[in-house]
């Protein structure tokens, strides 16, 4: 009993002490975000605000999540005691890993931030470890919530499809100061950033320290590179009949390679569709693609690529090809970008308005703008391009399509041509939006632009003079500009 009593007092005092320390190591971030209107790409949608609590790092830098700075017009750091408001800018951002590094805009701000107690990055933790989630209430009081690491997995916390190491922590959080993301500490060091909280399950998701460490290291480079990717699609080999057909022995694991992206690290290493991936860096993969990770239990194989090694490292991969074992070396690089980018944050969409036809380049974010059921509600031909880009890649860097038809004298009769893919204009193949702009710049001899489409009718025509006049009247009616050819 006596020892228990002491323990409690010790905990209470250390809690109080920690709270006081922590307040000097964290800072509020307030950002105003404004994204482009997907169907009217010359304008932005309404701005909205996000607030978060961020971690102060050495050299007057602040770490928070990428969600806080996506399409940000204005970022401000605010100290908990209300003394300082410091406008800041982004040093480096990774949307896939959901991390952003900020620094003050002014020398004064840098000086002020330098007086904070910077956090070191903690070492990787273990299952069962205790962590502390930091919040600052509106009145400036620090609130620490203790949690326990329940499991470790790879998860996509922001951009779908990009999985990174993630801790799941069991904690009973209060909602205080409505923060988008919070710092999580262990032993007074920064363990990770909270990206979501489920009050139903009392489960918190945290970006793991290995990812943060790799991100910060990369951020020191002149040009931020990002996390590598092997460039393969895989599927499980849990189906016993499938295994028999693959001649996989019953005691082993292995992942079936369904796709190899051209020009990817996997392609250059000689991996082929139909191979079975049995090990990465000597670690064997089970039938679902999991391996035994030190201190983490079972982990999905993608962490062995993303978050374990920087771009440029060479790793060994064990394969089975037609039942025979094979080892290859892969030099890690960024996944090659296909013609339809998965995300376009901080990139203003390229577009052209010509005579009332609005042309854009297809991206996954455009399709997602059709709502929650976009996978069934978005136009079928654009969905098909997104699902099978290999059928559209030839001769293209981006997929240009008519995203809207503004009713004008030049577009009379074309009102139904929404979402049609453009192949040629005035005889020139359209590889991307800049090539579309260039193709329209040439005035054709009979004064009529010819557009070849992937649809019915195959060819439509725009009167050059009429569409130029329409363009001017659209500007007069409030369109700020007719095109954007850079991002």
């Amino acid at each position, binding site marked *: 009993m006596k020892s228990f009593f002491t323990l409690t007092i010790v905990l209470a005092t250390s809690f109080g002490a920690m709270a006081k320390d922590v307040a000097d190591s964290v800072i509020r971030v307030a950002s105003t975000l404004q994204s482009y209107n997907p169907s009217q790409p010359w304008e932005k949608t309404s701005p909205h605000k996000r607030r978060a609590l961020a971690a102060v790092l050495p050299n007057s830098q602040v770490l928070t999540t990428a969600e806080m700075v996506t399409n940000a017009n204005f970022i401000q750091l605010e100290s908990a005691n209300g003394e300082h408001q410091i406008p800041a800018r982004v040093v480096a951002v990774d949307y896939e890993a959901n991390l952003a590094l900020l620094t003050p805009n002014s020398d004064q701000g840098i000086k002020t931030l330098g007086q904070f107690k910077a956090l070191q990055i903690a070492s990787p933790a273990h299952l069962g470890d205790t962590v502390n989630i930091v919040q600052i209430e509106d009145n400036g009081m620090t609130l620490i919530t203790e949690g326990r690491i329940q499991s470790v997995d790879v998860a996509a916390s922001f951009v779908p499809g990009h999985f990174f190491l993630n801790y799941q922590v069991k904690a009973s959080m209060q909602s205080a100061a409505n923060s988008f993301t919070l710092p999580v500490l262990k032993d007074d060091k920064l363990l990770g950033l909270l990206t979501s909280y489920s009050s139903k399950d009392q489960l918190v998701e945290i970006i793991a320290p290995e990812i943060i460490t790799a991100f910060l290291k990369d951020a020191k480079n002149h040009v931020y590179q990002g996390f590598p990717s092997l460039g393969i*699609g895989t*599927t499980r080999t*849990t*189906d*016993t*009949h*499938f295994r*028999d*057909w693959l001649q996989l022995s019953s005691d082993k694991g292995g992942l*079936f390679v*369904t*796709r190899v992206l051209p020009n990817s690290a996997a392609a250059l290493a000689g991996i082929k569709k139909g191979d079975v991936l049995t090990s990465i860096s000597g670690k064997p993969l089970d039938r679902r693609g999991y391996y035994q990770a030190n201190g983490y239990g079972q982990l999905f194989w993608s962490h062995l690529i993303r978050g374990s090694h920087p771009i440029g490292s060479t790793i060994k991969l064990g394969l089975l090809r037609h039942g025979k074992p094979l080892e290859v070396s892969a030099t890690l690089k960024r996944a090659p970008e296909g013609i339809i980018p998965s995300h376009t944050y901080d990139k203003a969409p390229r577009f052209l308005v010509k005579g009332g036809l609005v042309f854009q380049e297809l991206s996954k974010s455009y399709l997602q703008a059709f709502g929650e059921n976009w*996978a*069934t509600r978005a136009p*079928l031909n654009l*969905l*098909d391009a997104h*699902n*099978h880009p290999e059928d559209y890649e030839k001769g293209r860097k981006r997929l240009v399509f008519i995203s809207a038809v503004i009713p004008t*004298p*030049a*577009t*009379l*009769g*074309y009102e139904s041509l929404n979402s049609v893919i453009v192949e040629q204009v005035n005889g020139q193949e359209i590889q991307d939006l800049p090539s579309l702009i260039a193709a329209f710049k040439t005035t054709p001899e*009979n004064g*009529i*632009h*010819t557009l070849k489409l992937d649809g*019915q*009718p*195959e*060819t*439509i*025509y*725009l*009167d050059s003079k*009429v569409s130029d006049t329409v363009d001017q009247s659209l500007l007069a009616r409030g369109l700020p500009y007719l095109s954007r050819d850079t991002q």
Partner: protein
Amino acid sequence: MKVLFTCATALVGSLHAQDAVKAPPTQDHHQTTESASKAAIYKSIVRIEVASQVPDYKTPWNAGRFSGGTGTGFLIGKNKFLTNAHVVSNARRVLITMHGSSRKHPARVVHVAHDCDLAILELVDFRPFADLSYLEIGTIPKLESEVRVIGYPMGGERISVTRGVVSRIDFRPYAHSRSDSHLVVQIDAAINPGNSGGPVLQDGKVAGVAFQGLTQADNTGYMIPTPVIDRFLKDIEDGSYDSYADLGVYDFALFNPAMRKAYNLQPNDPGVLVSSVTSGSSSSDTLKEGDILTAIDGYSVDSSGNITIAGERVNMNEVIERKFAGDKVKLDFTRDGKNLSKEITLKTFPPASMYSVQYGKKPRYLIQGGLVFQPLNRNLYAAHKLNNPRVRRLFSEYVKEGIYKERKDILILTRVLDDPINSALSKYIGSAVKSINGVDITDIHQAHELLNPAEPPEFFEIMLEGQDRPLILPSKGLSEANQRISENYGAHKANNLTN
């Protein structure tokens, strides 16, 4: 009886003439004669009771749901009743009741046209109806003229009459097949469930067959007008219904001035753009994408594809609508600045049935190792709510892109009947089959042969469209699995390859 009916009408007419000269005859006599003539035709308008068996596309080895309904029909000739196809589709037993009698007379379906929602019935024993007068098919009524609808709609058991005017004459989809549009006449007389198949009368003649309504609007009922009825009756004269012929052309309106300039068209020049020609159709040997169709059978086609027939502006397809497979059509068109004129022979286009709701057919299917494969069609789409993007694309481009030429059937994996032989495969439900053992699938018979060869391979490799790996069925243990699955799931017949 027929003679008496005409006489009665003449009497009424002459009575009206006398009114001007002499004192009017008694009201009672006038009214009795009028109601007598009206009542005389009531018996020729019959109540049709149908017991049906609706095929089950969701669980195709099942017998289907027993269902039924009632509608209206009318006598147009000796033992010849006209009604809607949707009244008698999937019928197993048809009973006809005469107005004023409760006796039910067995009948059977002689001809059915699902593409224009019409059907002909005959009684097993016509004698009780032998003395009844036939209803004569008239002509298309004028806008605003009065019509009356007679039938057996909901709200009572006995004959009902409603009255209204002709509201609109238009070219609209016929809901029964979901894929065909023809001339319709819209009226504001109440047309309710049960009225289907009944006559709409004007001046004692049939102006149309009541067949559908618009639920979200008020007083909006539709009837099948006489040109469509006449065509149907002519088509079945040779003993079988051959269905509508199709031009096979997709058109695009030539409104845009720049487009007109590019085709050297003056502002008032006729012609609509041929934006696509269906391969294998009536016009595929003659017309090409980019042609401008300027006249059809001598009728000038305007820039939105309309022509003028008897003072009415209608879609140019109305010319085809009145013709039959084997008939000739003269097409005038412009290609590369040259005016051309060719005659084509119309034919039907069977692959288009992919988009029509099928009736009275047992669903085709194939089961192997608990994997259920069914050929894609409209019924399957509705039953399984398919939303795989590749399947959606195959469905929408089946005719347009000529997919039908290589793949008569697009087989869909609709179910996995769980069993150790297929336990990992449920996640692939809803995909189309690309190939089996490396052979691209063309139709269900071929797929059946590939899955049931004389010498089975060690593994059956089934590749699905857009999926990441082949589905593997081992030969070893397959027949035991099939036996197990057939017993467990009640799928007593492993396949139905024809209908």
